[in-house]
């Protein structure tokens, strides 16, 4: 057989062909990514810049004049009692909902993981609130927690307790909303933990058995908890962010009341911006809200780098 010789070719022509191929690949890339890029700019980039820009103005929808006011809006925020109450309430709500929904989610996942029978059934039940219309379920909770005709207080009366006006009292409203929030979030956290649990190599548990980690307690601290590190961090972050974004239940059930006791960040922004149409002022609130989210994300990334990734 003859040997196959490759023609040496012209190096200049070859590099030219390479440039053409690169150009056509770049063109195809731009064509495919173009619509997304345009929409990204139009619907996310520009509005984000816009909200920062608006926060420096006194713009009100319906009035034509718009003035640059510098940081006036932010200074006003510092003295706005409603906004400060709103920040405080959002913080309280988050502090109640996050640990409860994370721990209950983890607990449910651990119990369900070890239980062979009924595992699918329990998982389904705990997950139901995640796919239920929150506005509708908030309405149901409002009925359940109704001070006079609600089943919760009727149940409490059976054991001789006079239940409070859950969603109507300024002392209890935030806790009641938080409990609804926990009820809604546990299932989501649970499935994330379940996914994290299945990703733990079985051999680690076998090694722990051989290494005399006899009790479930020992195995949890030796294997489960450290191996769930990344999942836990993620679940905590997403729980905090979702808690900060609480809106539906407030809008449906309490509308910030009674007496601003359930005034939360997004509700305040909604009222200022879309009801009173003070766009400039609401934009400043939005920037604060966005800054809070950014800080949370940065904290998560830093923790992720430092502590919970072992690779």
């Amino acid at each position, binding site marked *: 057989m003859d040997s196959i010789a490759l023609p040496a070719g012209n190096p200049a022509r070859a590099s030219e062909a390479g440039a053409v191929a690169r150009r056509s690949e*770049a063109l195809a890339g731009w064509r495919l990514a173009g619509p997304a890029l345009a929409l990204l700019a139009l619907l996310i980039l520009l509005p984000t810049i816009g909200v920062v820009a608006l926060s420096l103005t006194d713009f009100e929808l319906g009035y034509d004049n718009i003035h640059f006011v510098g940081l006036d809006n932010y200074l006003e925020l510092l003295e706005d009692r409603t906004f400060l109450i709103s920040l405080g309430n959002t913080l309280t709500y988050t502090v109640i909902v996050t640990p409860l929904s994370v721990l209950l989610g983890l607990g449910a996942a651990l119990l369900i993981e070890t239980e062979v029978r009924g595992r699918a059934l329990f998982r389904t039940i705990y997950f139901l609130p995640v*796919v239920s*219309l929150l506005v509708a379920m908030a309405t149901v909770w409002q009925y359940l927690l109704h001070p006079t005709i609600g089943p919760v207080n009727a149940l409490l009366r059976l054991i001789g307790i006079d239940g409070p006006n859950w969603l109507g009292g300024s002392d209890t409203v935030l806790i009641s909303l938080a409990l609804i929030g926990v009820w809604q979030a546990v299932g989501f956290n649970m499935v994330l933990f379940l996914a994290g649990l299945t990703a733990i190599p079985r051999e680690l548990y076998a090694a722990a058995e051989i290494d005399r980690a006899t009790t479930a307690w020992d195995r949890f601290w030796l294997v489960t908890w450290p191996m769930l590190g990344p999942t836990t961090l993620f679940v905590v972050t997403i729980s905090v962010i979702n808690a900060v974004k609480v809106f539906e239940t407030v809008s449906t059930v309490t509308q910030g009341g009674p007496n601003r006791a359930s005034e939360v960040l997004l509700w305040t922004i909604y009222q200022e911006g*879309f009801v009173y149409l003070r766009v400039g002022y609401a934009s400043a609130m939005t920037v604060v809200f966005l800054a809070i989210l950014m800080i949370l994300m940065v904290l998560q990334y830093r923790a992720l780098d430092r502590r919970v990734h072992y690779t």
Partner: protein
Amino acid sequence: MTTQAWTLARALRLAFLSAGALIFLAPYVWMLSTAMKPREEIFSSSLTLIPERWAAVENFSKAFTRVPMLQLLMNGVIVCAVILVVQVLVALPCAYALAKLRFPGARLMIAGIMLGLLVPIHATALPIYVALSGAGVLNTYFALAAPFMISVFAIFLFLQFFRAMPDDLINAARLDGMSELAIVLRVIVPNAWPAITAFSIFSVVAHWNDLFWPQIVVTETAMAPPPLGLIFFRAAEAGDDYGALMAATVVVTVPLLAAFLLAQRRFIEGITLTGLKG
């Protein structure tokens, strides 16, 4: 082991799980029960679940007549469908280009997408609302769907999925003479169904349940999606005809719950996948 022994620990575990399950199910049980009860029984505040006099017909007919319930459901379906289709159509080719093609600006765009992941609708709502209001298109399907035409999350999810696909698969398709668009349609999409399904479930659940944006751009009952419709219904009923209200909540909750119960595994996988990647 296929069968577990009945130990004390297991009994305790089952007791805990069952108690939790009861609490989680309670709202659904009362929702159904109350939707069947007449007004006077509801106000007697008794704990019985089975009504003495069935008022289901009365309650549900109110739910369907006081607000245009079918119209609300229809609005929800249309808006969710439009959002999903556009999101996928925009995200798929973009994610493919970013994952598998080299072009100037690609890295910058990926950075933009990662940043975009941090910006929720709540942050961009004001400027978009001002623009839509200026254009005079409030109270339209367009206004309901507009801010969600792009999902950076979808691009991000598909990007990760496509990066894991072997380059040789695409090179082989190129050698077979396919254009880049043909590669997306004939090679990428058929292989990306798991990611598309997961994202679809995530998207529909999110937008079917969303109240924030509809409450901003819609003031007419005829254009409202189910959550907002429910708010209007409550306003119309002055909020204390709980029988009719519960009937209405049953109607708006059932579609997604039914879909979930029919395809539980897919739902949970989809939400887990989109959750963990997000």
